[in-house]
Every structure is written in C-alpha cells, then in structure tokens.
C-alpha cells in the first residue's frame, strides 16, 4: 500500500475555500447529504458483527486467534470438526453436478460363478451390507437354482429352498493382496474397498480358504 497520505494536501486547501460548502459527498441526486455512505466507508466491521449469514457458521464465531491455553484448543477442534448436524450447502464442495453424478456408481467388480460361461459385474457402491449384496447376486444369477451359503447368519439365505438339485455356493472374494476370502469377515466398508472381484465357489471346492475366526466355519461340505 502506498505510504502516500494525501489527506493533508486537501485539507490545507480548505482554508482558502469554504470547503464545507463545496465538500464533495456521494449521494443519489435529490437525496439530502446525510453521510450514509461515509459512515459505511469508514470503520471496519468486525468479524463478529458480520456473522449472520445463517450458514451454521455461528459455531465459528468465537474462534479465538489468541490461542490462550486449552480454550483455544477446543475452539480449534470445534472449528476443525464441524458438527455433524451441519446442513448441506448448495454447491459446496464445488464439484460439478456432472462429475458428482458420474461418481455415483464407481466400484465395479466382476462376479464369476463356477460353472457359468459368463461373467457379471456389480457395483459394490450400490449396496450397504452383505445381505443386500447377496440378495442382488441371487437375483443376478437367478437362472441358476442355487443357494448361497450365508455364513453371516449361519444359515442359508433361502430357508425354504429344499430343491436338492440346487447346488450350494459359497461367496468369496479376492482382496487387494490377492488372497481369496470368504465374505463377511470384515466390516462392509472395508470389504468394498479391498474387494477386487467376487467368485461364487461351489461349496465342495471351498477348501483351504482363509477360515473365518469363528470355529463354526466349515469349509468342506
């Protein structure tokens, strides 16, 4: 900012002129020369005064930059982690709607079924739990009459399935490290992240898989 302080220049001239009379002010034509704008132009508005934006920002009002002892820490943490109840704001974060929509489904994995000549792919992001995924898989491969052993509940999904021609399959997946695991061991989110592909293995072949921690797991049919 320029160090020039010109206020003196003008003020000194004032002596010669009836400056007040000719003092230039800003206003709308016809308006009286009440210095509304001047007042606004002078004086900063403090941070506190400006907060009425109704954005849920009020939690940040007390942000104290003096950082005295523990109090500022809690302020910091309260600012750093906004309350979960914070309402979603339109257009924030600034990601184009187009991109947001494109990202909606984005965790595709191949599903192979032993003995089937074709693959399917599913989007793991579409489901929130193993149960949903297994239901969807059964729908996908509904032309087969098979059941999927659901270790989660220790019983078959389709209780009423007494069709003995149905073969029991075990849902397995290959994780990031290349190991084949049974579904259900890890929390759902973790599974979604680490799953590379799914395979519905015939129960008879599901030997040597990484056993579940529960002793009830039986890999041989």
């Amino acid at each position, binding site marked *: *900012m*320029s160090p*020039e302080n*010109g*206020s003196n*220049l003008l003020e000194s*001239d004032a002596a*010669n*002129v009836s400056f007040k*009379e*000719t*003092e*230039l*002010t*800003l*206003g709308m*034509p*016809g308006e009286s*020369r009440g210095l509304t*704008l*001047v007042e*606004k*132009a*002078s004086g900063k*508005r*403090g941070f506190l005064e*400006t*907060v009425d*934006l109704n*954005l849920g920002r009020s939690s940040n009002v007390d*942000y104290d930059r003096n*950082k005295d002892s523990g109090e*500022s820490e809690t302020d*910091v943490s309260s600012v*750093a*982690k*906004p309350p*979960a109840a*914070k309402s979603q704001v*339109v257009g*924030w*974060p*600034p*990601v*184009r*709607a*187009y991109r947001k929509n*494109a*990202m909606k489904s*984005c965790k*595709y994995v*191949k599903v*192979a079924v032993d003995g089937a000549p*074709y693959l399917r*792919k599913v*989007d793991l992001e579409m489901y929130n739990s193993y149960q949903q995924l297994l239901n969807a898989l059964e729908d996908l491969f509904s032309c087969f009459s098979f059941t999927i052993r659901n270790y989660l509940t220790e019983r078959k999904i389709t209780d009423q399935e007494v069709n003995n021609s149905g073969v029991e399959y075990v849902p397995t997946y290959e994780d*990031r490290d290349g190991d084949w695991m049974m579904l259900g061991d890890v929390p759902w989110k973790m599974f979604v*992240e680490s799953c*590379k*592909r799914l395979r519905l293995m015939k129960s008879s072949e599901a030997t040597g898989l990484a056993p579940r921690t529960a002793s009830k797991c039986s890999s041989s049919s």
Partner: protein
Amino acid sequence: MITNKKPRSSDTDSNYMRDDRTEMSEDDDRSPPSDSITNDSCPTRNCTPGSGSGSSSIPEYLAPYPDQVLENVLENVLWFLTSRKDRNAASLVCRSWYRVEALTRSDLFIGNCYAVSPKRATSRFSRIRSVTLKGKPRFADFNLMPPNWGAHFAPWVSAMAKAYPWLEKVHLKRMSVTDDDLALLAESFSGFKELVLVCCDGFGTSGLAVVASRCRQLKVLDLIESEVSDDEVDWISFFPDTETCLESLIFDCVDCPIDFDALERLVARSPSLKKLRLNRSISIGQLYHLMVRAPQLTHLGTGSFSPSEDVAHVEQEPDYVSAFAACKSLVCLSGFREIIPDYLPAIYPICSNLTSLNFSYANISAEQVKPIISNCHKLQIFWVLDSICDEGLQAVAATCKELRELRVFPIEAREDIEGPVSEVGLQAISEGCRKLQSILYFCQRMTNAAVIAMSKNCPDLVVFRLCIMGRHRPDDVTGEPMDEGFGAIVMNCKKLTRLAVSGLLTDRAFAYIGKYGKIVRTLSVAFAGDSDMGLKYVLEGCPRLQKLEIRDSPFGDAALLSGLHHYYNMRFLWMSTCKLSRQGCQQIAQALPRLVVEVIKHEDNVDMEEVVDTLYMYRSLEGPREDVPQFVSILEDRHMKEGALMWKTDISARCWTTIRSVCIVNVRWVINAKYAQHMHGPYTFSGNVVVQVHVGDPLAHRVGFHWMRIPILKDMYGSDHISILVLLELISLMVKAKLIVKVGSDCAFE
C-alpha cells in the same frame, strides 16, 4: 466516417465505439465534440490544461480518404496478427487501423455473450471464420444459479447465419444451445468444420444428428461436460456413408447409448481420426475393436473400461495389451468410467508415451495406480480421484518430473469425513513436481506448511486452486487460519494468474492477495474473510483482476463500492450470499452506467427485497439484456433517463480492451473514495482523465456539458499515474477558480 456529435448517453447506439475511439485516441489531437447550447459561454475552454484546443463549435467534417496504398499494406500486415490483445491494441491506433483490423480479424472471441450484441459484433467484423462465446459464469456449474438464466446461442447463430456464411468454427462454453440452433448452424454454414461445446445444455441427440448429417466438412465434434438429452436418436448413424474428414470425435459426456456397429463403421471410414473419446456405454470389448481399427489415435477416451454384462469368460477375452501397444501415437488417455481395475495392466505399453492421463472417473487405489504411474515419465497432465490417497500422490511425485497440471478430485464431495488425501500429498507433489504450473486439489485437511512449501518449490505456478472441503477449516496441525499459506502462494509464485482459496481465512489473507497478487486475473472465494476490508484489499490491490467470484463471505456495500474504479476493467463480478443490499447495488448501477447489474433471487427467498441473494455484474455495451427471466432484476441508473443528473459519467469503450491509455472517471464516486483512501492508500489511474462537467442550469430540461481533458500528470513519486488525490486537487482548484460553484447532488456550474 462522420463523428457523431451526440452526447454519449446510454441511448446512443450505433457507432458508439467508433466515436469514442476517435475522441480518445492518443494520436488524435482534434477536439472532442461539443453539444453545448451556448458555445460562447464556455469558460472551460480557456482553462483546459494540456493538450487540446478546448471545445470547438466547428462540426466535424469528413476527412479526405487516407492513402489507399498505405491501407493495403496495412491490411496485408495485419493478417498476420493473431493475438487478440495485439489486435485490440492495433484497432485503437486510428480510424484507418480500426477499419483494417476489423477486416482482417478472423477469430472472434467474446468472453461474455452479454457484453456485446450479435448485431454489433457482426457489424464491426465482416470476415469472421471462427467464433468463441462464453455465457454463464462459472458458479452456475454448482447450482448457484437458477436454470433458464440466459446465455442463449439462438440470437448469435441467427445473426451469424446471415453475416458469416463461410463460418468454420464455433466454440461455446456455458451457453444454452437448442436443437433448433444446431439445425440452423448445420444449414447455414456449408463449410463448417469445428463444433466444440463445453459445459453447454439445452440440446439433445436429435440436434447432434442434424450436425452429423449436414456438416459434410466436419472435422471436429467435441462435446465436453455438456448435458445432452436422450432423444432416442442414434446420431452416430447420421454421419454420411462416405469417408469423413473427422479428426476429433469427443462424446464422453453423452450418457445415451449408441449403436456400436454404426460407430465402428464410422471409425473405419474416418482415416484422419486422431481424437476419440467414447462414452460409458462402450464396453472394453467394443473398445478393443475400435482401437484395432484406429491405431493412429493420439487421444483416446476409453469408455467404461469394463466388460458389458454378458461377456464371455476370461479365457476368451481379447488381447487388450496388444491393442494398446499398437497405438504408438497415443499420448492422451482418459475415460475409465466404470473401471474394473483388473484391466488396468492393458495400458502398460503406452504409459511411457503418455503426456496426459485422466483417471478422474476411476475409483482406483494407490496400489492400483502405482504400477501405471511409475512408467509415466513424460506425463504433463494428470487428473485423478483422491482414492489413490497420499500414497498414490507420492508415487506421482516420484516419477512425474515433467508434470505441469495436476487435478485431484474427491470421490466423496462431503465435508464431515476423513479424507484420503491431505497436506502430505500436496507436500510430496511440491517436492517431486517442480515444474508444476496448475493445480486443483480437493482435500479435507491441509496445513499452511504444505502450501508454503508448494509456493517455494513450484515457482512456475500459474493456477493454484485449493479446495479444503470443510468450510472455515483451519490449519490441521496448528489450528491457525490458512492466511499464511495462501499469502505465500501470492508472494512467491510470481506468475500466478488464477487463485481459488478455501479453509479458514481472515482479512489478512486478502491483504496478502491485494499486496502481492498483481497479475491475478481470476479469484474464487468461498466462506472466507472477516469484513469489508477483505474485499477492499483485493479490489484495490489487484489491477489485473478480471473475474471475481465470491460466495458466502461477509462483504457488504462499502466493500462493493470500493471497486468502482475497476469494474469496467473486469469481465464480471459474482457475489452470492454476501452482505449486499439492494441500495448498495443500486449505487453501483448509478455510478457505472455501462455495467449491467443483475440481482438474482434465490428460489426460496420470497420476502426479503432488500437483501441481495446474488449479484452478478458485468460490463456491456448493450445495456440491460432483453431475455431477462423473472427471477433476475437489472438495476439501472434511473436518473440517466430522467435527465436530472448532475454529474454525468461516461466510459471509454476501450476500458475493456485492456488498453490503459484512457480511463474515464466518474467524479461523483471518486469523492467517496477520498474517504476510503484514508484506510488503505490512494487509487491510481493512468492515461488521460476526462471529466464531464455540466454547464447551465441543471434544473432545465436540457443540460449541456463540456469535456475537460486532464492529461497524464506526474504524481509526487514521478510515476505517470494520476492519483485520486491529484484529481481531487484539480477539482478543488476548479472550485477555487469558480469553474464549479457548488458541488454535490444539486449543483450548478458556470
């Protein structure tokens, strides 16, 4: 060319720019026109300092036609001038150059479709071959603008259909384009070659079909991030059956399925095709077939990059690796819209040739990206999702030493989650990619230290856009605001022209920007600042600022008014959910008649008339546009029309050709700035300052006025800028000399 003698009010239309330019040309010593009623009583004539003989009552007459030979030479020379800045400068030299430049310009660029009308543009430039038009402001992308705001292509295509039948290229960004517009385009321009639509909407596949079928010379059809409605027309089949001239076909944003066989045949009969970006309906198997047919491709968008539903088992899948290996010219790779990472190794053969890689739709992990990126030694542009985590970014930093542009997008665009990338990734990039010029980085947490490191490690930064997704989020380690980080960016990155800030920011950050951001042209602000001072720092400190977009920040009327000296130099100002009042915006409209001041109402704001939801203002030669929707009100200077104006203002059209040789000042608002300058320094202007002062009885129906030209003065530091202080001094001198008897809202002059 007869100079128009009428006063430069907002209702004069044609030849406006020409007149002004004639007056304001530095080479032109002729006196400005006068419309004074009583010419003999114009004391200003004797008192005008500097050049010019004062006002004259001799009407302008038609000058003898300049030397034809000289003009022919000029025409031949000016053909070679391609930069639009240079062309704008050349057009201002004198009338002859203006005329010839207009004849020789072939590329028309209009940064704001409302700044000038189609009629005016087509009248001035008669030999245009290529048109670029930009419409809505960028914040419209984030649902901050109600639909149907405007930016219609229709009036432009109608005007151009008549004026430029030889038109070859149309490039639109954020415009509303209808199928009818596309049909008119296809019918009107027989030699049409290039259509590029970026972030456009309003049209569908039926419009594309017309373009495909009628534009026989079409080389480029690029649809980028546009919304294309599915009219269930297979537009790909509409290309003529013969060999095509197609060089670029980009349709990755078109979400409608297409007939693959038609596409395959099209590719087969397009031997010049170099750029092909497929949409997500194309499976990897289909991609294989296309690649085999077009190994000459340089740019490829892979489509879904996963098999379609009913694909045969693994053994029977084609050899993707060899297909990629055959594309020896491939330098730019994108797509991966529904990627199954198993297939990634297919691209290994071409990694080392890639200069541009776009993984921004691919949810892949660090482990999955590492083997790819470790071969991409030549990579200059990399777009990716934050799913690769800091670890993935570290891998990028380790290999991509030539990286110029990095964009890291969030998989989950939310605030209250743990993010996979952080300051660690940014730091790594800054250390590894020293040639970085442009970065867009979304994250949940950040530190000043990392940003400062980047400012020092990457001195070539031109674009720095950091989006800390948590609003008002401070430095994750120190708890401090992010002021110092952004301050370091503007301080150390001397080439920085575009900046987007985020996180917890006080006015201090803006003080830094105002102080050091001298060449910043585009600034994006959200949820930042403490007070009006923040905005004032920027408006006063950044002389090159062209585009300023602000949302949800506590800047009010006083801050807005502090930018009056600069708004004519800007393309636009956007302020939404700030602290503006209608009155404040009205004052701007009052002060700057060549600014269109739009107040856009939010849908849910029914009652509050005084509070301004969104202000969008831009310079324009045309005044308020006619296609205004009901949720937009345009504030106008009412008193201009009533003629009760005391101080009149005017602007040189040159202001927005970025020639600083002329600048016209509205003395009225200058006075307010006098108070402002106590706070933070004087304004400066360069060039000639022209003040229009009224003569005669202002209460009479007709008011005459004179021009006073104040040439460049040296201020006390010897620079040829006129500071506002000097200007005010001049005015006070005029007062002393009784040129102005009383000044203010109801005054009379002699």
